[in-house]
């Protein structure tokens, strides 16, 4: 007898229940993985599915060859033709339509950038990126950037043309967001599991506030207080002087053909005490800023964000037409800060150039009659006032002209991704602006960036100007950020003006010390008249150039304009090149932009060679110093990618700076705060026995020569230790590279180790970490038909899957420029890369 024993029904039922439970649990887990985000990763279901998830981005990476749509609010049809470089040429019949479509086009390529920039100013990054961004949000809100932008927007009359056009631009952005299909959602939103927010017109002013923060923020008073506590008032004044020690000003000095050197010896540092060091540390902390560090680069004594521009009169160019070069240096990101565009409304506007997403203007570009570009003035337009408050911990009033005046209070709640409040900050305002606390002191800030001027309006009108005179006239009321605007026109004129609002101050007119806030007598008295601005038109020398240096030689005008100017070596170099070239060509202008020579190298290497020779003759030279000096003698002084000696010079300069400015550190292990510029170091080189050469952390007394010998020896040891013996591993291209991070620092979306032809003091400088540099280079020839060439590090698209995301990097890194298409009509483009036709909604 055989046979299976029947399984009891109860057992079968139990097995079935277990099966339901097990398979149900497995299904639940699979579904939860699909629905819930895991950590910072998005929910996998929508992310991984191939129809509309991340993979769909492959289908939408490039612009469709032809697209058309209806758009509400348009009065007439608008044609957009994308050229072979992905630049949209927008042909509209009126300005309102132009702005609406401009907004649409910019959102189509840079939507995430628009939102991220806005949130950075609004202090709402944490809502998108999580609590890691909280410190940036706190800083943005404390600075009052969004608060100031909202004030600007409210101050613009409802009937103002610019308000209408900015609103049309915002409508265009929102029209794009509204018609976006699931496949169009930008990459970053998918990673973050977020959706785009609607765009408000005032966000354009948020962007302008951000540019003001990058370019017009000035902590001069805090730096001075910090340095003064460490080395005394006289020394602080001399180390960060109001007047640059090397004068190669923007406003030419008649008859001068070489830079002027100030050879005044530096006063000795005052003895320090521990109380002063504590005060210095307080100011040091007050200056530390994640946001500013990100935007402006490491503050290692040099102004990290700098720019170049120059223009040449027709009589000094080969073809007899004015030439203009623009080369703004900013933080390098992918996508780039810039977006190239051509805007045309017949009879009104025909402008080509770069725009910053969110700003419906072309701040740097050209039209059929003229070209314009800018460098930062670095003028002091921010002052600190020490306020007396009723309660240091929780102030409610401040003393003003003998009476206690209520403080304006702003409560800022910072929220995380879930909407939960992460932190609440209270910001206090006096009539001057927001306050910060430094120890037991409250300082208020008066800053032009928080004023209610409408810069967008001036720049938009300037885009339509026909001559340098008209341009300067339109821009005369422009306020912030103050810029050295350089222009050239087809009539052969060139002109420059440091344009912006410069405060008229009480007393001696200086703005580099903290003022007493208890009296309105110390408030600003107004702004400089335009006639007083540094400026020049068609100078006898036949060219104009600006490189963020002190704009006027104090021998010409000693008015306080700012201090701690960018090092003058870029200015010295371009002036030298332009003085010696009387037949400049567009290609020469291009070459100058990445010229590999620095005017500073001889100032440091020659004394070092002499010092090493003397020490060797006395039998006191270290072998490493002798070897290092011998290697540097072989150097041609050029920072070219294949150079194998520039690395040693760079290391030597680090060592000299570290050993010389020891007085500016409380202890040897403490990080140095503000550092005098290399121009100041060059001035000190002329005084071999200055007490500043002594390293006060060592028992012996050092001189210039002993510091130089020790520096080259240490540099040689450091470089050989890191890169081995002299050889290919010393090649500059492997060492000085650009690092272009993604805007939100998403790993994998940036580009690293891009070789650069740049070094200390070259026209194309780059800071130590390579995150800042030439953000847009262009050359314009103002012939009857304007010709232009340009490029920027990145590409037109913000989509990392698109070929247009980084297609210009190689051209940019090689110092080359693309020819820019400037068609009078769409048909002049031939076969465009893509077209977009927008027609009014019925």
């Amino acid at each position, binding site marked *: 007898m055989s046979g299976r024993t029947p399984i009891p*029904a109860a057992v*079968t*039922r139990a097995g*079935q*229940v277990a*099966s*339901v439970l*097990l*398979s*149900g649990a*497995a*299904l639940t887990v*699979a*579904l939860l*993985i*699909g629905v819930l985000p895991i950590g910072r990763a998005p929910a*996998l*279901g*929508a992310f*991984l*599915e*191939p*129809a*509309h*998830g*991340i*993979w*769909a*981005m*492959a*289908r*939408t*990476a*490039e612009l469709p060859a032809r697209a058309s749509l209806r758009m509400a609010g348009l009065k007439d049809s608008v044609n957009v033709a994308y050229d072979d470089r992905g630049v949209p040429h927008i042909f509209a019949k009126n300005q309102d339509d132009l702005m609406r479509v401009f907004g649409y086009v910019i959102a189509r390529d840079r939507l995430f950038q628009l939102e991220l920039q806005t949130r950075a100013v609004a202090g709402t990054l944490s809502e998108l990126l999580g609590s890691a961004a909280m410190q940036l949000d706190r800083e943005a809100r404390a600075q009052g950037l969004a608060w100031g932008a909202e004030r600007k927007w409210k101050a613009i009359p409802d009937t103002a043309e610019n308000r209408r056009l900015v609103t049309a631009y915002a409508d265009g952005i929102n029209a794009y967001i509204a018609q976006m299909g699931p496949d169009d959602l930008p*990459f970053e939103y998918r*990673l973050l599991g977020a959706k785009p927010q609607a765009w408000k017109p005032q966000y354009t002013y948020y962007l302008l506030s951000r540019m003001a923060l990058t370019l017009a923020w000035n902590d001069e008073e805090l730096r001075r207080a910090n340095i003064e506590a460490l080395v005394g008032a006289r020394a602080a004044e001399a180390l960060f002087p109001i007047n640059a020690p090397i004068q190669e000003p923007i406003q030419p000095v008649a008859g001068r053909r070489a830079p002027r050197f100030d050879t005044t010896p530096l006063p000795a540092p005052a003895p320090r005490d521990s109380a002063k060091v504590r005060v210095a540390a307080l100011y040091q902390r007050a200056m530390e800023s994640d946001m500013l560090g990100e935007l402006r680069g490491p503050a290692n004594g040099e102004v990290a964000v700098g720019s170049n521009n120059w223009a040449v009169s027709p009589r000094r160019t080969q073809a007899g037409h004015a030439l203009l070069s623009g080369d703004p240096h900013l933080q390098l990101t992918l996508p780039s800060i810039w977006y190239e565009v051509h805007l045309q409304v017949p009879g009104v506007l025909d402008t080509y150039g770069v725009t910053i997403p969110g700003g419906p203007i072309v701040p740097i570009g050209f039209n059929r009659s003229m070209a314009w570009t800018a460098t930062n003035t670095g003028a002091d337009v921010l002052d600190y006032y020490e306020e007396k408050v009723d309660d240091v911990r929780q102030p409610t009033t401040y003393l003003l002209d003998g009476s206690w005046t209520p403080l304006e209070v702003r409560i800022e709640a910072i929220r995380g991704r879930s909407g939960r409040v992460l932190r609440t900050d209270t910001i206090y305002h006096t009539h001057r602006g927001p306050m910060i606390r430094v120890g037991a002191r409250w300082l208020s800030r008066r800053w032009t960036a928080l004023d209610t001027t409408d810069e967008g309006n001036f720049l938009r009108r300037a885009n339509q100007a026909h001559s340098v005179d008209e341009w300067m006239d339109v821009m005369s009321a422009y306020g912030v950020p103050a810029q050295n605007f350089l222009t050239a026109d087809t009539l052969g004129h060139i002109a420059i003006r440091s344009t912006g609002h410069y405060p008229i101050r009480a007393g001696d007119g200086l703005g580099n010390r903290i003022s007493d806030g208890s009296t309105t007598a110390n408030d600003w008295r107004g702004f400089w008249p335009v006639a007083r601005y540094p400026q020049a038109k068609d100078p006898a020398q036949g060219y104009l150039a600006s490189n963020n240096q002190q704009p006027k030689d104090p021998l010409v005008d000693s008015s306080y304009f700012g201090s701690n100017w960018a090092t003058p070596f870029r200015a010295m170099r371009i002036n030298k090149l332009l003085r010696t070239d009387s037949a400049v060509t567009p290609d020469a202008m291009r070459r100058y932009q990445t010229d590999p020579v620095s005017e500073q190298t001889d100032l440091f290497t020659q004394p070092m060679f002499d010092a090493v020779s003397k020490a060797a003759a006395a039998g006191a030279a270290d072998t490493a110093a002798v070897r290092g000096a011998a290697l540097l003698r072989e150097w041609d002084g050029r920072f070219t990618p294949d150079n194998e000696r520039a690395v040693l010079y760079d290391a030597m300069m680090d060592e000299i700076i570290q050993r010389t400015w020891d007085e500016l550190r409380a202890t040897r292990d403490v990080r140095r705060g503000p550092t005098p510029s290399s121009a100041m170091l060059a001035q000190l080189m002329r005084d071999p026995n200055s007490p500043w050469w002594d390293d006060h952390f060592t028992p012996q007394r050092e001189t210039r020569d002993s510091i130089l010998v020790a520096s080259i020896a240490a540099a040689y040891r450091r470089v050989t230790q890191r890169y081995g013996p002299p050889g290919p591993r010393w090649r500059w291209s492997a060492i000085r590279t650009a690092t272009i991070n993604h805007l939100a620092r*998403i*790993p*994998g*979306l940036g580009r690293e180790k891009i070789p650069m032809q740049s070094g200390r003091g070259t026209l194309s400088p780059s800071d130590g970490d390579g995150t800042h540099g030439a953000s847009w280079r262009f050359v314009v020839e103002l012939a009857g038909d304007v010709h232009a060439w340009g490029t920027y590090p990145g590409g037109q698209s913000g989509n*990392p*899957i698109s*070929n247009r995301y980084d297609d210009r990097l190689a051209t940019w890194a090689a110092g080359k420029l693309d020819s820019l298409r400037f068609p009078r009509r769409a048909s002049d483009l031939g076969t465009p890369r893509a077209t977009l036709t927008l027609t009014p909604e019925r």
Partner: protein
Amino acid sequence: MRWLSHLIVLTLVIAAGTWFAGWWFVPIAGGVYGAWETEERASVITAMLASAFAWIGLLVFDAFRGPMARLTEVLGGVLHFSGSTLVVLAIAYAALLGACAAAFARSVRRLASPV
């Protein structure tokens, strides 16, 4: 033959459903199929394979319409693993959804039927 035709039809249904409705259509289709198919052992495998094939088909379509290689490279860089791993993960996830849903539906059907 019957199994193959089921597989083809289910693959097409899941592909179309994913396109028009989204990823959650996969477990729904897998569940419906698991509840409907009486050939119990085949139902889970069919749902699993159909789900995987449906997504493979859609991925191939994506690859024909755009730079899939660049996309996987970028994703690999961002997520710190090979982009192709993510492709495999996507296909495996579809298979998991389809199989789990079919298995669950099958076991519920069994439980509901008399012993």
